[in-house]
């Protein structure tokens, strides 16, 4: 079992969701974050004063999947999130040591059943 964490542009969330649905992945959790990476922030003026915005709004998506689904899932996320411009984001994959479905009490890979 792996936990896939992806950061990408908020406006791509719909595309990513559709791409995941197409692969049969329906379970996920999204949250909004402020991130920095390759894409530099920008400077603005507010009331005549410079303001450095170096944390940009991104979405962070968590998808826990069985090991055999990992590549497929990453591909789907990539496909949905890619625009080719700086700021497209990252995917990180972590090992899940254990899992449990709260409603049923199922554990391990069963939770993805």
């Amino acid at each position, binding site marked *: 079992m792996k936990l896939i964490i992806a950061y990408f542009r*908020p*406006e791509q969330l719909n595309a990513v969701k559709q791409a995941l649905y197409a692969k049969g992945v329906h379970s996920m959790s999204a949250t*909004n974050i402020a991130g920095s990476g390759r894409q530099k922030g920008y400077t*603005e003026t*507010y009331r005549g004063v410079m303001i450095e915005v170096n944390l940009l709004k991104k979405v962070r998506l968590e998808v826990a999947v069985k090991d055999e689904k990992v590549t497929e899932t990453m591909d789907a996320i990539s496909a949905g999130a890619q625009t080719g411009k700086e700021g497209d984001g990252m995917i990180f994959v972590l090992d899940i040591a254990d899992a449990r479905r709260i409603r049923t009490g199922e554990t391990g890979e069963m939770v993805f059943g």
Partner: protein
Amino acid sequence: MKRRWTLSTKALTVVGLAALVALVLPSAGFAQDEAPEFLSQQNGNVMWTLIAAILVMFMQAGFAMVETGLTRAKNAGNILMKNMFDFSAGSVAFFLVGFALMFGDDIGGFVGFSNFGLSEANTADADGLWGYTFWFFQCVFAATAVTIVSGAIAERTKFVSYLFLSFLVTAVVYPISGHWIWGGGWLSQLETPMIDFAGSTVVHSVGGWIAMAGALVLGPRIGKYTKDGVARAIPGHNLPLVALGVFILWFGWFGFNPGSTTAANGNIGLIAVTTNLAAAMAALAAMCTAWLRYGKPDVSMSLNGVLAGLVAITAGCANVSPMGALIIGFGAGILVVLSIEFLDKVLKIDDPVGAISVHGVCGAFGTLCVGLFASPDFGGTAGLFYGGGLSQLITQIIGVGAVFVWSFGAGLVLFALLKITVGIRVTAEEELKGLDLTEHGSEAYSGFQIFITE
């Protein structure tokens, strides 16, 4: 200087206005100790008209709140700016040009042409001073017409081109059709002159049809329609602002309609009654219609109902009975819901706030209703249902049609012109990021976590 605080006219002594005031007040000469006993009708009219104008001015805040609340957080600053600056630009435009075209000396029934920059106004006597009050009253009406547009074209229009638009609409488009009906133009010269007491057509329809032209030329917001043309919902971000805006508009409408007597008459309360009943009934009708169609009383649709009723009663507010007002409101409430759906799903015109249906469609509906429901007891004219025959109705139809052709046509031309010059639509990227960041470099809700995913 003792007991200065008991004097009612600080201005008199402090500012030396004495000379002026003497001219203003009807009874020629007066000294401080033998003040004129009674308030002149003229100054009573000035007071009432000014107060009404102030209430109408406040409707700008109502429009700003409604439009902001019904669009997305990422464009809130932009829509606020548009609402602030159409009033600013519009005031100046109407002062320099618009008023002259609307109320200046008539040229062939089509347009007025004199008194630019209030050049003919004077402070010499009460009549001269009245001119200023009247200008202010008309100015806030003109600003109402133009601010209607911003809602329908929200979330995708370039700020600079909207500024030009509001200048041009207030300077030229609105005044010309306004001249036809209120300024002594051809629609008021018909045998049975058109009745549009407070401006269902003059103000609201004009705004609504220009808005429609704009929404058509601009096209829908990104994401509003799927590839196969199915409408998608893009929910507004702040319902409390919407409700506040509707209350402010309702409040201001008691200046809009009763104030259109521009005189401190006895029937201003009656006009408030018809206005209020139509709004209340339309709200109920719209809510029930939405409830029946969608299974739940949709908040924003119900609130649109209030405005639909207010717009519809505006033409006939001084000419229909309270019962008539209830019926007109009832019709407008149903109509606005169906119209919003029709525009959205059938015509596929993307109007984020429902401005076209509320102001254009219900404005036309209300104007026509005068031909049906005008009651001789109330405004001296009889509509079809009160035995007045068809003549009034026919005039109303002519008026509604002519104003549609004019304002929709002028709107198309203006938007087309702006499109090929400064450009009217922001880039797709700007639209996605939001106009606040890209056009103004600021966020409306700094610090708040907002999930902007489309």
